[in-house]
């Protein structure tokens, strides 16, 4: 099928401001939007910049705004978007070139929640025990691939980039509710600050945006509740 791909382009080496370019590509209905972008880069315009790697939704490289929504280009099929596809870079992060945004602030915010297991106890030579129920408690937030789709869908984040954003909270949640972790209180304290969870106004954009189906807003609410009632 013949598809029109309208892409927001910006090359700071050449352009003073972003502009739109439209490409016509021939694709199969079951092709991914990523395949259409490849058609452009490989056969029409080699200057088009976008990140990608695994091409099936597990590496998190190709989050972008497709027809107004944050999506991974490799998880969205052309037949589900239609013949007129508009592609823009994620909002809320500086655009470096075309669809490539600066991820530094995003990863810096991720690091502020101390995203690793804290446990000073000696576990001995075998595994720490954890019941299936305890393991299930934080399963949802272990799925995060740090693609930034949630954080850059958040209107609060667009307006205030000191907010740690949904992805950082998701990664804090993953440890706060892990029975093996001992730094929950510290993380809750971090997220109780000005830049933390109270910025969230439960717009649910993040949950809609997550390509892994994580209930992001719910995770944020659970962290809020844990701050109010640590017991």
């Amino acid at each position, binding site marked *: 099928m013949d598809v029109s791909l309208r892409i927001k382009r910006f*090359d*700071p*080496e*050449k352009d003073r401001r972003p502009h739109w370019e439209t490409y016509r590509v021939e694709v199969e209905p*079951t092709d991914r939007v990523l395949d259409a972008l490849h058609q452009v*880069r*490989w*056969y029409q315009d*080699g*200057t*088009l*910049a*976008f*990140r*990608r*790697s*695994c*091409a*099936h*939704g*597990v*590496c*998190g*490289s190709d989050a972008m705004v497709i027809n107004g929504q944050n999506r991974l280009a490799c*998880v969205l*099929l052309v037949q589900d978007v239609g013949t007129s596809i508009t592609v823009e870079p994620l909002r809320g992060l500086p655009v*470096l*070139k*075309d669809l*490539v945004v600066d*991820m530094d602030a995003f*990863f810096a915010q991720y*690091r502020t929640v101390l*995203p*690793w*297991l804290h*446990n000073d106890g000696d*576990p001995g*030579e*075998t*595994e*720490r*025990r*954890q*019941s*299936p129920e*305890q*393991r299930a408690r*934080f*399963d949802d937030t*272990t*799925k*995060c*691939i*740090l693609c930034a789709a949630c954080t850059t869908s958040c209107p609060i984040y667009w307006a205030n980039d000191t907010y740690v954003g949904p992805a950082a909270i998701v990664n804090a949640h993953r*440890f706060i509710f*892990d029975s*093996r*972790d001992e730094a929950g209180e510290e993380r809750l304290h971090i997220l109780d600050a000005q830049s933390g969870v109270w910025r969230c106004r439960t717009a649910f954009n993040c949950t809609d945006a997550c390509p892994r*189906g994580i209930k992001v807003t719910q995770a944020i609410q659970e962290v809020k509740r844990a701050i109010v009632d640590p017991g």
Partner: protein
Amino acid sequence: MEIHRHRFDAVIVGAGGAGLRAAIETAGKCRTAVISKLYPTRSHTGAAQGGMCAALANVEEDSWEWHAFDTVKGGDYLVDQPAAQIMCREAVDAVIELEHFGLPFNRTPEGKIDQRRFGGHTRNHGEAPVKRACYAADRTGHMILQTLYQQCVARGVAFFDEFQVLDVAFVDGDPRRGVAGVVAHELATGDLHVFECAAALFATGGFGRIFKVSSNAHTLTGDGPGLLWRRGVPLEDMEFFQFHPTGINKLGILLSEAARGEGGILRNADGERFMERYAPTVKDLAPRDMVSRAMLLEIKDGRGCGPDKDYIHLDLTHLPPEQIDEKLPDIAEFVRTYQGIEPKTDLIPIQPTAHYAMGGIPTNVSAEVILDAADTVAPGLYAAGECACVSVHGANRLGTNSLLDIVVFGRRGGAAMAEYVQGREPAGLPAGFGEETRRTIEGLLGGPAGAARVADIRAELQEEMTEKASVFRTDESLRAAAAAVDRLRERYRGVAVADQGRRFNYELSEALELGYLLDVAQALVAAALARTESRGGHFRDDHPLRDDANWMRHSLAFRQPDGTVRLDYKPVVGGPYLPMERKY
């Protein structure tokens, strides 16, 4: 084009499981730079699904020695047995350590790490399948990658993200004299960065993108093996490439062997469970090389599924729906997304997909790179993970052993490298190091308009390799493949990059990657042509039997100054297991 300079004790090239595990080991011991062309969490370790085997015996009786036997037999006796013994023995500690690092494994009712079945893993030397794979749903690789990255963040590891390493410098240009540095292309700026160092560990992953239908990420292009090969390092056992039986039809996206570990069945057009004929004991859980061949034979004999009779069905419809939700959620979602069908009720069209390189940069069990058949070590040069060949996988890797490999030999390599650089200053870079890379890039950027296009050459390479050098090979097909690769290498000399910009010039990156793809394809075809037997992932229609008298040896492919390939061989290191016929 600016050239920036850095000085570290050690560099790690690649930030997947092997690179990150090595970085954890060097942290606090020596100044280490981790240089990766992707953000670390984008690495393809994250796409691994099913599990990581270790004889914990949490669910069923097991021993690391049975695991070692399965690994050797699964590798069709081309495995270096002491290396496999080390890997399988250290597997137990490696899994426990990952749990201590925070990895959220699935649990047994008693709270221990849960385990499940996987292809080729058996109890007591082949009696029956055994539950040995430790797992986290069907996203074990994702959990390993995230957990190792988290541990690197905790240790303040110095990352150079989106820096593509393009060349290595040796003292006096001789790998026997020691590592002097690497040069990397910074994607964000187009600048070059020279890293002076006393040691380097390559962990750049695989090169499955030489084939058309592949489970590999677009970025798995053999950069590490390719650039080292150009500098005189051989590549070992390149003819052995694994095709995973259950790739999504036409796309190649991986559907984990865990689907069969959980009870999934392969069926032909007649609905027959055909693996009962090929592997009566373990059936659908036979090793991947055997299953992929069986599938293609079914198709060849007219029992393929679909209107063109060109695929096989994976049947999960008899599994309890909640088992699919709990144990196989991601692959079920892949099937829904990319095939538009429901795995709980529909049969899944699948085909073999290019998956894993058993061969690569030769190393010993300390991950030190080996330069020849006499096992001469390249001082300060290390490799681990899929880009390396220890050899623990021999002619065919067992499922889950790749995740084990990256963790065990990433750790060993990191430890060996940290020890090597103690009290050792970087040797100093050769004058003008980086200039050749600059000229290469300027050459690609300055190519004539209308010259050869990267995408065309790459597509043709993938077609040729798939048709002539994949699951079934012959002398004739491999000679044709060699001629095709030579022709494409010639065309590549004239390749031109239209994008003249410096920032995020992905067209340029892909042109550089294509150079490495052509290199590894050339080595693969040369080694496959010479090996006149069938073993593991290398199957020759014209030499269908294993030939232990002549071929119990590893190939070493060398790049000659004139661009051709010279082959040498070194013996397989034996151990307790004598070669026997591989029946399952």
